[in-house]
């Protein structure tokens, strides 16, 4: 079985498991929503203020939600030792990792689709004029978050205190991604919306580099 087909199989399995249980998406979405609401108490949510701290708020909510959501990605395979069964399958370890990364991209994307309109209404920011470019920035940021988050969830699954450990492992590594995504989003939400190429290049660089490293290290990650 080639990598693409194997990865698709894993992806379908992940999505099916999630749609049967429907626990991950619900919890993550509500968590992100709570973060967005709590921010309105920490800052004064007027239109001018929102434009200043809105992009940061959105990405912090997504990153926190992501660092909690990605944790079960590998940890839940431990419950019935199903990871061993997956690793015994005659497919490359990278296919398993890729399937999980893509599934997480879909889950995070679904959360963002639900969260964005609420964010726009609560903080009074007009997203529609820049929606195409905003989706582009969100896609780049989400992919980087999913790649590093999925790999680190496999790492954290080996440890004690894994629920607390994943955000600790993940968030400092995501500093460049957070900066680039926030600045790119802020550029889009300003009075004269523009997509700043420096930050897009940084996001693409982050994604390409960590995706390549994940591919190179997937054998070590999943052979234990």
């Amino acid at each position, binding site marked *: 079985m080639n990598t693409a087909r194997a990865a698709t199989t894993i992806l379908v399995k992940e999505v099916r498991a999630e749609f049967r249980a429907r626990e991950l998406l619900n919890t993550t979405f509500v968590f992100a929503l709570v973060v967005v609401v709590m921010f309105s108490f920490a800052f004064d949510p007027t239109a001018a203020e929102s434009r200043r701290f809105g992009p940061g708020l959105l990405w912090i909510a997504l990153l926190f939600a992501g660092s909690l959501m990605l944790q079960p990605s590998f940890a839940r395979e431990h419950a019935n030792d199903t990871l061993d069964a997956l690793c015994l399958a005659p497919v490359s370890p990278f296919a398993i990792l890729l399937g999980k990364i893509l599934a997480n991209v879909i889950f995070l994307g679904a959360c963002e689709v639900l969260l964005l309109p609420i964010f726009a209404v609560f903080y009074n920011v007009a997203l529609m004029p820049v929606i195409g470019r905003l989706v582009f920035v969100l896609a780049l940021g989400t992919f980087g978050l999913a790649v590093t988050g999925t790999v*680190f969830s496999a790492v954290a699954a*080996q440890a004690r205190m894994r629920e607390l450990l994943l955000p600790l492992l993940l968030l400092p590594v995501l500093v460049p991604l957070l900066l680039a995504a926030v600045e790119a989003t802020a550029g889009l939400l300003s009075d004269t919306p523009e997509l700043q190429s420096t930050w897009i290049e940084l996001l693409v660089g982050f994604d390409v580099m960590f995706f390549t490293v994940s591919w190179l290290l997937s054998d070590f990650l999943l052979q234990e």
Partner: protein
Amino acid sequence: MIKRLIPAVAVGALMIFGGYAALFIAPDESTMHAIQRIFYFHAPSGMVALMAFTICFIANIGYLVGRKPHWDCLAVAAAEVGVAFNTVVLITGPIWAKPAWGIWWAWDARLTSTLVLWLLYISFLLLRDLIADPDRRSVFSAIYGIFLFLDVPLVYFSIRIWRTQHPQPVILGGQGSGLDPTMRKVFYLCWFALTAVMAILIRQRYQLERARNEVEELRIEAERQISAAGQA
């Protein structure tokens, strides 16, 4: 014993000489005066921390390629020593910044990236503490270590574009930078001394880790024998 003592004494003497040179031989800086002398330990500590993290990265790759335990011992030794030097940078920085800038901390590019670097390697050490199985600890911390090290240039680059307030590099900097020749000599002396301290600390920590692994193996073997005797 003597073999261990000689390098330690030599490095101690070197550090004393470095400290003397930084305080008394280096000329007075025209605007910052005495407080500038902290620079002879602050800047080299930062460079030494980066050297230690590079050693950690090489050891991480070495472990994944060959699966020899000594690479893992080197990785943890280098990471811990790197964090120690990184902490020195983060403590000496504000001591200098308070009189020079008037504030202890500013979210300037270098300060922020140094702090993020410190957080990254603290997470690396935390991860190692939380994985009980020695083989898994070595493999998974090596994977994480490689991700960390590759993240460092991205962190520096992104924060640099974001903001900068730190004095521009005066060593190997661009045009218009440069040091008084005596200052330069003292700076290189301190850098050399701190690198030697790093080497000795890593060696010490490496041997400690190997001894710890050996004790662990002996303990497991002893427990196995006791339980075998109990069954018989």
